[in-house]
C-alpha cells in the first residue's frame, strides 16, 4: 500500500511536526511503501544546525536523520515552497527530490492513502 505523509507544519511551533515524524517511524514497521512530502512551512523541518535544547523540545533534525535508518527514503520537497522561503536544495539536511506543482499533483494522486500533517 502506498502511503504519503504530507508535512506542512514548521517545527517547534507546535507538536504536529514531531508527532508526524514519530508516526512515520512507527508506520515504517509495517512494510508499506511510505513516502514523505515536505511542503509549505514543513520545509523548515529540513534546516540544518537546529538547536532546540533551550526550548526543551526534541530535535527534529535528528529524527529526520533517522528516517533513512528506518528505510524511509522516498523523501520529496516542494520546489516552490523552498524558493518562497529563501532556501536552496543544498541547505537541506536530508536527501530529497525536488518536485514542481505538477509532479506533486501526480505524486498525491498515485497514493492509496494520504496522511495530512
Amino acid at each position, binding site marked *: 500500500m502506498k502511503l504519503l505523509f504530507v508535512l506542512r507544519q514548521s517545527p517547534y511551533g507546535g507538536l504536529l511536526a514531531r508527532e508526524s515524524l514519530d508516526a512515520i517511524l512507527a508506520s515504517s514497521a509495517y512494510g508499506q511503501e511510505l513516502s514523505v512530502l515536505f511542503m509549505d512551512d514543513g520545509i523548515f523541518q529540513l534546516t540544518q544546525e537546529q538547536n532546540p535544547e533551550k526550548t526543551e523540545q526534541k530535535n527534529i533534525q535528528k529524527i529526520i536523520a533517522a528516517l533513512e535508518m528506518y528505510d524511509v527514503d522516498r523523501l520529496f520537497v516542494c520546489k516552490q515552497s523552498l524558493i518562497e522561503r529563501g532556501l536552496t536544495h543544498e541547505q537541506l539536511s536530508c536527501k530529497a527530490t525536488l518536485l514542481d506543482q505538477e509532479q506533486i499533483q501526480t505524486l498525491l494522486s*498515485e497514493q492509496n492513502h494520504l496522511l495530512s500533517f
Partner: protein
Amino acid sequence: MNTILHIINKSVFTHQALRQCLKCYKDSDSLLFVGDGVYCALNSHEQAAKLSTINHCYALVDDIDARGIDHSTLLDNIQLIDDKAFVELSISNPLSQSWF
C-alpha cells in the same frame, strides 16, 4: 490516478490553507469547506476569482448557517451540502487531504 477530496477548515482571510491547496488541486478533484473554511466560499476575497473556476466545490450548509453567512454573498459555483453528501464525497474520492 485517484481523485482527491481537499478539505479546508481555515478562513481564507487569516490562513494560507486555501492558497496552498489550490496549488495542488487538479480538475478532477473536489474541494470542500468545513468549519471556519466556509468563509472561503464568500465572493469577496482575493482568491475568489480563482476559486470561481473550480467545478467540484462544496461547503457544509450547517457551518454556513451557524455563522449567519448570507447565501447570496457566496460564490455561484459553491454547492451547499449536508453531512450525508459529505460522506458520499469521501466515498467517491479515494483520497482525502486536509489543509489546516
